[in-house]
């Protein structure tokens, strides 16, 4: 019998991404990096593919690279391009 370890990730999205996902949600998954998370979210809601492709991810209030390895209980922010000012 195969046991998959499913990590808990807290996700928070902003601005227009809230039209596609809940503002905050948890993901129980075996995803370990940002690239995989992006793919997972696109599978989940294909309509968000374009905005996700130009959004950046952040952990601990710092932008992360695509190969950043998540740790258990990380809060991941998904940051679309800014439109401040």
């Amino acid at each position, binding site marked *: 019998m195969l046991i998959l370890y499913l990590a808990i990730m807290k996700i928070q999205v*902003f*601005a*227009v991404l809230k*039209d596609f996902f809940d503002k905050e949600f948890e993901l129980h998954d075996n995803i370990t990096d940002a690239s995989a998370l992006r793919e997972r979210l696109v599978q989940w809601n294909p309509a968000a593919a374009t905005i996700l*492709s*130009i*959004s*950046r991810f*952040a952990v601990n*209030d*710092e*932008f992360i690279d695509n190969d950043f390895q998540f740790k258990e209980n990380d809060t991941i*922010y998904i*940051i*679309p*391009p*800014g*439109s*401040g*000012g």
Partner: protein
Amino acid sequence: MTPSILSHQEVVDELAYISASPLDIIAMLGKSHNPRAGAIVLFSGEVRNHSNGKDVIYLEYEAQEKMASKMMEEIIAEAKNKWQLTIAVAVHRVGKVAVCESAVAVITASPHRHEAFTANRYIIDRIKHELPIWKCEYFQDGSKQWGGNCNCHNITGEVGKHVYNA
């Protein structure tokens, strides 16, 4: 309230890069004089009553406030150092902002005008392109629209790489 809490409050006010209450650009300008500063430049980005061919009622700004504050602080420190500014301050509103209210204000000062102008433009350009702050426009016709995200990635080929006019 003890004096130490009061003085902490003052320090926090000085560092308030993101504000939920209206920006008092008059008070900001009033504080921005320095006998070594020959040139003071103030930029105020204000809400227009018209956008995308529609009448605007108000805007609402959302931010990842911790990241936006930290990035603002870094941008200002970099500009202050690069152009040897006498004064460099910037604040961005969050929440509902009415037409003619200021959504963002930047003040720079330097001995001569070239530095104050160049640095002010640099700071506001980086704020508008890079900070995790987003506007949503609410229109008279009841519709809303998340605002003009920057399209620099189409030119630079990389998300998070930007091009500037200045």
